[in-house]
């Protein structure tokens, strides 16, 4: 992993008797796109608030650009971030452009700086820049909020549910935008409930449940191949299943005619030989890849009700 620009080390944040974040440890590598996943109430938004200094942890250490939470350097580090947390926070009675100008002024960027027009163009709001934000739809507010997060060109962009309210076209644009951030020198930490979208967007994943880390790593290693999928000619399903079972290989026939085989440590060629010896020649043989949704559901449901 490249050097982390954000580190959580045994961080706990309690609200009353409930730990919203519980001994959480994870790193975010520079110029990566990291997905923060978890069910409702898993602690995603609290985690984001902690790293932005909006909430203080009860214990543990957070290091942002090497600065420890609670120090003056940490406050300076927060200014190197751009964020969109929960619902878009905008000045309703100001125009889109005025909202961005206000944000820019806080970072010493002038009202006529080309960054303002550029970011409005990036989020697709150039034509509505003089409209008051109170007239905007949820999707447009999401775009505005993203513009505020990006306009000062932060090194770390923190986005909580950035595709909420976006139309399909907007979702694709948002995905491409987030994917482009590392090439612009930025790092992104993104949370979303839309796992299919996250799968297409991020490089690394952090999965939390009840405030605890349950998985962390490159998405490719978390979505591992766990077997192979066979498609055999019609009428050969039972013969294939019998041959595999006789060879001690666990297999399941599905209604669509596919046979899913748990290969364990055996290479796919062994499975092909077992079938060939039984006179069954598959039409298709491919690696079975778990999707993020199934991995997420497996991980987040495992251990439920325990302890």
């Amino acid at each position, binding site marked *: 992993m490249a050097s982390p620009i954000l580190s959580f080390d045994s961080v706990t944040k309690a609200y009353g008797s409930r730990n919203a974040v519980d001994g959480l440890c994870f790193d975010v590598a520079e110029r990566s796109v990291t997905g923060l996943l978890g069910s409702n109430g898993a602690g995603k938004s609290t985690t984001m608030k902690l790293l932005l200094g909006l909430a203080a942890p009860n214990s543990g250490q957070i290091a942002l650009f090497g600065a420890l939470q609670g120090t*003056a350097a940490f406050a*300076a580090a927060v200014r190197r971030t751009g964020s969109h947390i929960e619902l878009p926070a905008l000045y309703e009675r100001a125009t889109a452009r*005025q909202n961005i100008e206000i944000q820019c002024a806080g970072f010493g960027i002038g009202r006529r700086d080309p960054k303002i027009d550029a970011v409005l163009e990036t989020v697709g709001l150039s034509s509505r820049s003089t409209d008051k934000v109170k007239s905007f739809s949820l999707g447009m507010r999401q775009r505005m909020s993203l513009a505020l997060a990006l306009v000062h060109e932060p090194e770390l962009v923190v986005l909580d549910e950035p595709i909420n309210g976006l139309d399909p076209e907007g979702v694709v644009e948002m995905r491409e935008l987030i994917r482009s951030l590392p090439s612009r020198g930025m790092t992104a930490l993104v949370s979303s409930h839309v796992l299919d979208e996250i799968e297409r967007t991020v490089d690394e994943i952090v999965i939390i449940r009840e405030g605890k880390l349950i998985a962390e790593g490159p998405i490719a290693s978390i979505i591992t191949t766990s077997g192979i999928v066979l498609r055999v000619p019609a009428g050969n399903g039972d013969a294939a299943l019998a041959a595999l079972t006789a060879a001690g290989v666990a297999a399941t026939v599905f209604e669509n005619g596919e046979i899913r085989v748990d290969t364990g440590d055996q290479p796919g060629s062994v499975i092909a030989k077992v079938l060939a010896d039984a006179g069954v020649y598959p039409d298709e043989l491919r690696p079975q890849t778990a999707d993020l949704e199934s991995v997420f559901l497996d991980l987040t449901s495992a251990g439920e009700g325990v302890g």
Partner: protein
Amino acid sequence: MFAAELLKIRSMPAPRLTLIITLGLIVVGAVIVAVIAPEGGSATAYYEVPDLIAQVIVAIGAIVLGAWIFGLEFASKTLRLAATVQPSRARLVLVKLGSAVGLLLAYVVAVMAITLLIEAIMASVGSVAFPFAQQLDTAVSAGVEALLWGVFAFGLALLFRSYTAGLVAALVLALGVDAGLQQIPTVGKYSLGSATTSVGDAITGDAATLALGVALLAVAGWLIVVIGAGAARFISRDLK
């Protein structure tokens, strides 16, 4: 950070509307007085009544603006945004306080200057003498009192984390409760209203309940307690 606050003041309608409504009410009051004043009436009819109207309205306007400076962030839920632009909460409070004082100062100077002009016109209409120096002292006095109430409203909005709550609490205290507090023996004279009036009286040279130094200390005490408590709450608590 001051640049961002200045842009908020320029971009949002609340400061402009407050100024326009304030001046509108003062003008309407003056016109009504001009219409109903008897021909050859006294100075009271021509400029002292508008002056009294202005003193009350500028104080209310200052309270509205004072509460608005922080209340805006609470009402629009933009505090998270402001707190990531300026992550030092103590510095954020100071920037906001500075902005509030600057806005209130600009507001009271503008309103009282225009009020003086209206009063001079009214005196001219009624053909009565207009004692400019005396009325200037009165305007400065009213402006200072309004500014102090505005800063107090800023503190209440910060303390209650709400524009509406801060505004209502400040108005209730200024227009009602403070008069009751002043009736309390021994300590009533140190109420915020009594203390600000004493500061104003010192400017106009009128007899005051409290000496200027004591009045200033009493006002400072009120402001430090309210703003200090609000700031302590704001700095120590998580932002939702």
